[in-house]
């Protein structure tokens, strides 16, 4: 067994030498004749490098925003020797559009961008995807038991007391969003939960309602489970402003994409042709410390010189690595929190009737299935859509029952018209398939200071990508795009470096 493995590097090195020669010619050809001809050369019958023709320069695992951004960058750099492997039968990762007919969509996954999220805004412009404002004008309805209370909020989203927000924003200045474990007082801040810290400050009943809701939505868990250090690091990445992080107006929930967020991935995938392999989960990665890495997929073995793992660390942990990963990275993957709830529902109505009555479609329940509902109607308001974040275990799995329970709540909150939606959709990401596991990472105390340093450093030929690895806006769609750019640079640099040393 060991002797067989020992032979691999020699064979691989020979192939690499041939590839270095052929690859140079290919890139040259691409510059002269354009990518169409280059593609033809690659797929045509006159393959220049028979011996290593099955070894790709790069294999990207995951066709979400991150992986597809990397693929796009590689193509733009002239690299055509790559493949994108996607476990699902669709692209988009944690972005997914429900198609509601007549071109109307409602997003089941990530959907908003806001100030400072420039990487994804640029990408949307390049892909000619338009944006529009999240509707928030009017009153939010709060439900507690049978009681109902409506009130408008300035920014349209969750808010906490000014004093608490000010203190958090101030503390966030010294916690770098890209590496919270390097903060001067990291150990101290990582030893306490957000909940414990809040109790030291003293919080009002209304703050508790707001914080239960906002931390569950934005961080993936209520305050008792979150590290204060982590909380501050995400405020830091939001320009040291909790208001910007949680708000709609001037906040991270301000802007939506025309056609839904998944359209960014669909458009990027259009240029990939045969380089995109759907329904192709990677089960095992062999020889990541060698010159050529083998990816064992449901569609056979893929061999490549560099691997971009555009997956969250919890998903990486579902893949078998041979040999085992270095203990630091293995420990990080093994403990990466994957329990953030992510169930979203859609109620479609003939029109956004709540707007006429001065309501914004937002409903917050202090106890019960609804974490937060909001107006998710299309830009022209041609139909009315109420989308909601749901506590997965607190609403029936049965679609008819789930629809009825929510319709009753909306009727109480928004009026009788809400009782009869024309369509209902329900998506519990945790149960639909095993290919996301979690939406965002609710980092518990003690995690970043022990495991954070192992998040990004490459292991052999494995480049870690995905929004979790972003230096700005980790966890957001914008972070996914940023990580995708960085991973592509890293892969190209590694290829150059290797060719230099082997050639």
């Amino acid at each position: 067994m060991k002797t067989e493995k020992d032979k691999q590097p020699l064979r691989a090195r020979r192939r690499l030498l041939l590839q270095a020669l052929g690859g140079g010619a290919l890139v040259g050809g691409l510059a002269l004749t354009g990518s169409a001809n280059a593609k033809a050369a690659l797929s045509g019958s006159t393959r220049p490098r028979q011996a290593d023709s099955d070894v790709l320069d790069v294999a990207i695992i995951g066709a979400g925003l991150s992986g597809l951004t990397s693929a796009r960058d590689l193509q733009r750099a002239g690299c055509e020797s790559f493949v994108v492997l996607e476990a699902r039968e669709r692209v988009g990762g944690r972005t997914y559009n429900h198609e509601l007919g007549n071109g109307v969509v409602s997003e089941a996954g990530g959907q908003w961008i806001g100030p400072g999220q420039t990487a994804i805004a640029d990408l949307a412009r390049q892909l000619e995807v338009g944006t529009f404002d999240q509707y928030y004008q009017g009153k939010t309805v709060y439900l507690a038991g049978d009681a109902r209370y409506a009130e408008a909020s300035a920014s349209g989203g969750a808010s906490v007391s000014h004093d608490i927000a000010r203190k958090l924003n101030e503390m966030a200045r010294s916690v770098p969003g890209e590496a919270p474990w390097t903060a001067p007082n990291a150990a101290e801040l990582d030893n306490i939960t957000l909940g414990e810290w809040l109790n030291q400050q003293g919080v009002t009943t209304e703050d508790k309602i707001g914080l239960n809701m906002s931390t569950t939505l934005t961080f993936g868990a209520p305050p008792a489970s979150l590290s204060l250090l982590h909380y501050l690091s995400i405020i830091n990445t939001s320009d040291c402003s909790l208001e910007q992080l949680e708000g709609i107006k001037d906040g991270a929930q301000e802007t939506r994409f025309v056609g839904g967020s998944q359209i960014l991935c669909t458009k990027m995938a259009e240029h990939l042709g045969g380089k995109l392999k759907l329904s192709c989960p990677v089960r095992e990665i062999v020889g990541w410390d060698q010159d050529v890495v083998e990816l064992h997929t449901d569609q056979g073995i893929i061999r490549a010189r560099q691997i971009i793992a555009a997956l969250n660390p919890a998903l990486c942990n579902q893949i078998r690595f041979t040999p085992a990963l270095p203990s630091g990275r293995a420990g990080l993957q093994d403990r990466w929190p994957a329990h953030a709830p992510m169930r979203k529902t859609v109620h479609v109505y003939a029109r956004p009737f709540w707007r006429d009555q001065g309501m914004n479609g937002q409903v917050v329940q202090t106890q019960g299935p609804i974490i937060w509902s909001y107006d998710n109607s299309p830009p022209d308001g041609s139909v009315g859509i109420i989308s909601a974040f749901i506590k997965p275990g607190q609403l029936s799995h049965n679609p008819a029952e789930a629809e009825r329970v929510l319709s009753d709540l909306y009727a109480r909150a928004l009026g009788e018209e809400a009782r009869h939606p024309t369509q209902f959709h329900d998506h519990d990401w945790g149960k639909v398939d095993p290919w996301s596991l979690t939406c965002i990472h609710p980092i518990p105390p003690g995690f970043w200071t022990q495991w954070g340093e192992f998040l990004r450093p490459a292991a052999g030929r494995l480049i870690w990508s995905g929004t979790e690895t972003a230096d700005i806006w980790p966890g957001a769609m914008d972070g996914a795009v940023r990580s995708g750019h960085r991973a592509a640079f890293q892969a190209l640099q590694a290829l150059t470096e290797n060719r230099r040393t082997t050639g």
Partner: protein
Amino acid sequence: MRRAIVVTAILAMFGAVALGALIGPDLWAGYQFMKVVDQQTTAYEANGGAWPQLQDTCALCHGQNGQAANAHYPSLAGLSASYIENQLHAFAEGRRPNPQMQPLAKSLSDEQIRMLAAYYERQSPAANDPLSANASLDPLGQTVVETRGCATCHGGQFQGSPMAPRLAGQGEYYLVDQLQAFKASVRQDPTQAMNGIASTLSEAEIQAAASYLASLTPADSPAQ
């Protein structure tokens, strides 16, 4: 919200009931709202301590007070503390595979595990919503459960025991998942009893048994 609490303070000062009608419907609604929130908070703190509680995180999937309304997720209410402790340790040590629960359990201290186990043992289990439970008329489920001797470990009313979880009123699809996992040896019972029993069950028997057990009303008394 901000106004609601101010209003509550004002109303409390002047005597709420009389003022409600005078101030107007909005303010009155705010007062009523905060009153219910206060009641909810009192019940919440009496049951599990000061806000915020660690079990707030569990409640998202396992239901308020451990009673899930979704048959895909297990209800924890009324499970014995020793069973919950064992399962959390099994997740943390990788003996029971689950990509969501493993890292979560690893992040818990022994003290937190004991606290959560004691909390959920105290919660009263409830019957599933008959509309949600697939109340099956198929007698196969009951036959399977009786002939395989489930009651030996899980109790005469399937209310659970210190060694085995409550099955009565448990989530139907969760039960199916677990029986399939035992059958495929993905989940290992330390005594192998469940692996042995599940390995003899057909897919139809698994479905029928899960449906039958989910439709049972749990006994009032917590597991002992």
